[in-house]
């Protein structure tokens, strides 16, 4: 089961890496926020926990990317519609950790810690 979940997480991750740009903002603190917010929104959308447009523009921008992500996942990976609540939470958690590693903590990009834009 763990192997299946890992394969599924890698599918979602591959989609993000090939189709999205938001995970590659230029600084580590930006990437930390982007990954947390957008994966967070995607998880809430998958769980049906958000039914209103966020009023704050910065939140709404993250929400937009989260919604777009879920729509693409649902279309490409029909198995995602069959998951239980706990499975979705676990999947999002492992996806977030892996994305953080590849784009932030494990990234070899020397510019990520530059204190200025």
């Amino acid at each position, binding site marked *: 089961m763990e192997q299946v979940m890992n394969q599924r997480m890698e599918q979602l991750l591959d989609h993000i890496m090939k189709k999205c740009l938001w995970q*590659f903002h230029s600084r580590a603190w930006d990437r930390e926020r982007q990954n947390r917010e957008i994966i967070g929104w995607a998880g809430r959308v998958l769980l049906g926990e958000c039914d209103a447009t966020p009023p704050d*523009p910065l939140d709404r921008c993250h929400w937009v990317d989260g919604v777009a992500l879920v729509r693409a996942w649902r279309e490409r990976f029909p198995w995602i519609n069959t998951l239980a609540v706990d499975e979705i939470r676990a999947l999002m958690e492992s996806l977030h950790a892996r994305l953080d590693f*590849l784009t932030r903590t494990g990234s070899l990009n020397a510019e990520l810690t530059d204190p200025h834009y």
Partner: protein
Amino acid sequence: MPYHEFEVSRCIPERKKHAVVKGPGETLADALPAGYLNTIPGSISERGCAYCGAKHVIGTPMKDVIHISHGPTGCTYDTWQTKRYISDNDNFQLKYTFATDMKEKHIVFGAEKILKQNMLEAFKAFPDIKRMTVYQTCASALIGDDIEAVAQEVMEELPGVDVFVCNSPGFRGPSQSGGHHTICIAWFENKVGTVEPEITSDYVINYVGEYNIQGDQEVMQDYFNTMGIQILSTFTGNGSYDGLRAMHKAHLNVLECARSSEYLCNELRVKYGIPRLDIDGFGFEPLGNSLRKIGLFFGIEDRAEKIIDEETARWKPELDWYKHRLQGKKVCLWPGGSKLWHWANVIHEEMGVDVVSVYTKFGHQGDMEKGIARVEEGALAIDDPNELEGLEAMYNLKPDIIFTGKRPGEVAKKIRVPYLNAHAYHNGPYKGFEGWVRFARDIYNGIYSPIHELAKIDISRDAISTEGGFKTQRMISDVNLPDEVKNDPSMRQYTGAYDSLARLRGKTYPVFERTGDKQVAVEMATAE
């Protein structure tokens, strides 16, 4: 992901850290090319300088401006004969270029006097133009001319004019990318917030990192106008100087080329709280998703869907025609910066080509992260290549075509590899649904050029066949296609106009009632 060492660069061992091959199962955490570093002495690379990056890439596409280089005339080389960032005001910024013509005597005695004289003369020669940008060059930077002080004097002498000074001499950074950074920050600090714009829509954006190459901006502008979105400013292609002074009043920054202008979006987010939405304007699916996201942000997604449906129905049959004929063709995607990641995945998915190599002349490691993430396994990624490395890569990878600039492009042609101009395009615009088909058509024309077939024959070595006549493109491209594809009536070659922008200029757009208008009307009625 192993580093790749070029045979030709063994004498420059530092170069080994600048190229990697994306191996099976490997990730960005295994290896990443070094980037945004000074070019290694001995490596003749293809970069521009920081002055070029500030002026010729970012500043000059602004359309209603006199752009002056404070330096030798040669620094203004890039104008209408090399650049293709057109504008809808008869290309003023391309047709006229200005330099203070610094000579040796000015280096000795100073050049502030001729700078002021040039600025006054330029305003006098073009009395309708009230905005100016002045660019420091290596020469004027080294002698320490105080350009800001001169600009201030001119603004005091000529009421109504406004001048922006950009201090980005050629040596300020390892490449043109240093100039992108400098001008973004200078514009943000000195000009943003100095004009209060008229807001005409509930949905207001800055369109950032878009340079209107052969009309790209005008294509996207058409979509935004159709959706009822006000483009407060475009940074900077076809953009106006005063529009860009009003960037602080937008609701959303829509960012295309993050490489050149993410700095500006980041600062606008920090100071004014304007969100940054990165988009892809190239390719049916990425563009469609980008329009949807903008629509979703403003709550007008239905307007985006209408455009996507209409444009897809019109142009998809033509894209598919080319996709069948480009399937499996090998491409070296060798642009300057952002196109390596804008195009890496979508040309594979939507045109069927295989990207065997990506490179960037001036990109940072962040651009390589995006590019490597988007290519398939086996691709060779190179940072700041030199000419010999480019040749070695082409001999080894045997691409069917490369997408690059005109200088390395001409090198490729010498070894009989066709190239498309990735910076200025061949027959653009390439953005938009129709533009994407124009790009596919250009790739097809490049790969299947009958003349190119003849060029492949080495008359000093190869036997010249006297049998068989001249082969047309279709004879070459369709030779292995099954009949059901060749004769499929649902697909067709490009049917658009030679000038795809003509139908956009002068077009009228739907008028949407504003929520703000309703509120004002209610408030006025209540007050009465």
